[in-house]
C-alpha cells in the first residue's frame, strides 16, 4: 500500500476521534489567543502608566512663575501646533455618529449625488486617508488607459473611501450611508430621513412613490476591491468555470449609483445595519417586483450590469467603480444559489476583478499592445475581449 492510500483511508476514521482532536486544536488556539490578548492589554496599560508617570509638564521659571519666558526675560515663541483638519476615518462632513439625527432634508429631486471627492479629500487631509494616484478612485478619468486592474491601495489607510458619507435622496427620503470606526462590527449604517416629516426611519417601506429601478447606487470602498490578476486566477477560471463567472457587461442606466434593497428581517428602530439578504428579493428589487407594504432594508451596495440583454445584479460589500455606459470584463466568484441564476455575490469583496474596456483597449489589435499590464491581465483581455471580436 502507498502512503497516499493510507492517508486517504484516514479520511474515513471514526468521526469522534477527528472531532476530539479538532476540539483540542481549537481550545488550545483559543487559549493562546486569550493569553496573547491579555499580554497585549497589560503591555498597553503599562505603557500608558509609564508615560503618565514619567511625563513632566513644561518646566517654567519658578522665580517668575511664567512659562515661555527665558531667564533673561525674552519671550520664547511657542510653535504652532498644526492640527490636521480631519482625523483618519472621520467623515468629511461633520456629524456622522449613528445617534445623530440626520434630518438634513436636501431634497434636490435629482439623481443621487455624493460629496465631491476632492472636497472630501481636502477635509480629510491626513496623508493616510488621502487616496494615492494608484488607488481605485470613483472618478476613473485619471486611470491609465488599458490598465483597469488597480492594485490594492498603497495608502496607509486601507479604507480611503470610508472617510466620507454618501448621501442621496430618492422618493421623498434622504438616505445617508454613515461611516463608522473600524472596530465596530457593522461598518456601514444607513440613516433614513423622511423629508416630509423629518422623522428618522429604521426601514423603508415600499410604496408607489419609490421606484427601485431608479434608486441610486451607493458605491463604497472595501479593503481590496480589485485584486491583482495573476496566472493563478486565469488558470482557476479555466479549471473551475462553475465557480468563477466571467462576463462582459455595461452598467445600465444613466445614474452612477444604485442601491440594493432587501427585506427587513430584523426590524427595530434606530440605525439600520447590515443583514444578510436573500437572492430572491434582490431579483425582485431588480425587476421591480417588491410588493407594496413590504419593508426593505438598505444594505450592501449593488450594481446592475446588462449583459446580452439580461440584467445581472452585482452585490458586493465593496466598492465597484463602475461608470455608466462603459463596458467591463467582470470576473466574479459566484456563491451557490439555486433560486436565482443571475445574481452574483462574491463571498468576499476582494474576489471581484474588473477590467475596463477603455478606448485604448478598443483601438489596440491585441492584448500585447496594451501597456502596463501583467501577462495574466493581458490574457484576460485577449481571451475575453479580443478573441471574441
Amino acid at each position, binding site marked *: 500500500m502507498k*502512503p497516499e492510500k493510507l492517508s486517504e483511508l484516514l479520511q474515513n476514521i471514526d468521526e469522534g476521534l477527528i472531532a476530539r*482532536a479538532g476540539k483540542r486544536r481549537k481550545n*488550545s488556539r483559543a487559549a493562546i489567543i486569550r493569553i496573547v490578548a491579555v499580554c497585549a492589554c497589560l503591555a498597553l496599560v503599562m505603557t500608558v502608566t509609564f508615560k503618565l508617570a514619567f511625563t513632566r509638564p513644561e518646566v517654567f521659571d519658578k522665580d517668575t512663575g511664567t512659562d515661555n519666558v527665558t531667564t533673561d526675560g525674552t519671550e520664547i515663541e511657542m510653535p504652532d501646533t498644526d492640527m490636521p483638519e480631519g482625523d483618519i476615518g472621520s467623515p468629511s462632513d461633520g456629524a456622522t455618529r449613528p445617534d445623530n439625527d440626520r434630518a438634513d432634508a436636501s431634497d434636490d429631486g435629482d439623481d443621487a449625488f455624493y460629496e465631491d471627492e476632492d472636497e472630501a479629500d481636502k477635509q480629510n487631509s491626513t496623508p493616510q486617508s488621502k487616496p494615492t494616484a494608484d488607488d481605485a478612485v470613483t472618478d476613473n478619468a485619471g486611470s491609465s488607459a488599458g490598465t483597469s486592474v488597480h492594485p490594492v491601495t498603497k495608502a496607509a489607510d486601507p479604507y480611503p473611501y470610508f472617510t466620507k458619507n454618501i448621501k442621496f435622496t430618492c422618493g421623498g427620503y434622504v438616505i445617508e450611508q454613515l461611516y463608522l470606526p473600524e472596530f465596530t462590527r457593522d461598518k456601514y449604517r444607513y440613516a433614513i430621513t423622511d423629508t416630509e416629516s423629518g422623522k428618522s426611519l429604521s426601514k423603508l417601506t415600499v410604496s408607489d412613490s419609490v421606484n427601485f429601478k431608479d434608486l441610486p447606487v451607493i458605491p463604497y470602498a472595501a479593503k481590496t476591491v480589485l485584486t491583482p490578476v495573476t496566472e493563478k486566477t486565469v488558470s482557476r477560471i479555466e479549471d473551475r468555470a462553475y465557480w468563477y463567472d466571467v462576463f462582459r457587461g455595461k452598467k445600465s442606466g444613466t445614474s452612477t449609483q444604485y442601491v440594493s434593497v432587501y427585506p427587513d428581517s430584523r426590524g427595530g428602530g434606530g440605525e439600520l445595519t447590515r443583514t444578510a439578504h436573500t437572492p430572491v428579493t434582490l431579483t425582485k428589487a431588480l425587476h421591480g417586483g417588491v410588493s407594496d407594504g413590504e419593508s426593505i432594508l438598505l444594505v450592501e451596495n449593488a450594481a446592475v450590469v446588462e449583459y446580452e440583454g439580461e440584467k445581472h445584479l452585482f452585490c458586493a460589500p465593496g466598492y465597484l467603480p463602475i461608470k455608466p455606459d462603459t463596458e467591463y470584463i467582470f470576473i466574479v466568484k459566484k456563491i451557490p444559489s439555486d433560486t436565482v441564476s443571475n445574481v452574483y455575490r462574491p*463571498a468576499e469583496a476582494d474576489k471581484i476583478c474588473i477590467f475596463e474596456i477603455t478606448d485604448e483597449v478598443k483601438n489596440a489589435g491585441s492584448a500585447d499592445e496594451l501597456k502596463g499590464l501583467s501577462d495574466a491581465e493581458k490574457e484576460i483581455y485577449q481571451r475575453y475581449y479580443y478573441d471574441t471580436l
Partner: protein
Amino acid sequence: MDDKKIISLYFDRNETAITETSKKYGRYLYKISYNILADMSDAEECVNDTYLTAWNTIPPKKPSVLSVFLARITRFASIDVLRRKTADKRGGGEYMLSLDELGSVVSGNSGPEEDAIEKELVLAIDRFLKSLTRDACDIFVMRYFYADSIKDIAKYVGKSEQNIKTSLHRTRLGLSEFLKKEGYTV
C-alpha cells in the same frame, strides 16, 4: 450559531447557511487546507469548494458532526488539488511530510486487494487508534488527518516537539505491527 441551526439553514436552502458556516468553520477549514497545500490562494479555493459541496450535499445528507463532515470535504478537495498540482513530485506543505512518515507504516506497493479490504482496514485503524492513550491518538490524528506541523501539535497538546516526534514514531510502529497481526499485508 450551533450546528443544528446551520444544518437547518442548508435544508431551508437559505444562503446564510454558507455565511454561518464560514463564520464558524472558515478558519478551521482553511488551516486544514493550508496544511496540505501550503498555498493561500489554493487553500481559499478549497475552502470555497467545501462550501459549494456542502451546499450541494446537504440535504439529503444530514451530518451528525458538521465540523468533521466539512473537514473531510476540505481534506479530500485539498489532496485532490495537490495531486493534480504535483503529480509524482513532492512539494512543500506539512501534508507531504506526513506522507513521508506514513511510508514507514506501509510497504509502498499497491495491489488490487487493497480496494476490497478498504472498509475493513479503516475499521481496523479505528480499533487501533481507540486502543491508544488520548494524547497519542489526538497527536496521530492531528498529524495525519489535519496535517498539522510538529510545532503546532506540540502547542496544542502542551508537550515538546521531541515528545511529539517520539509519540508519532511509536504510534506508526504500533500501527504497522497491529495491521500485520490483524492479517493485513500493507
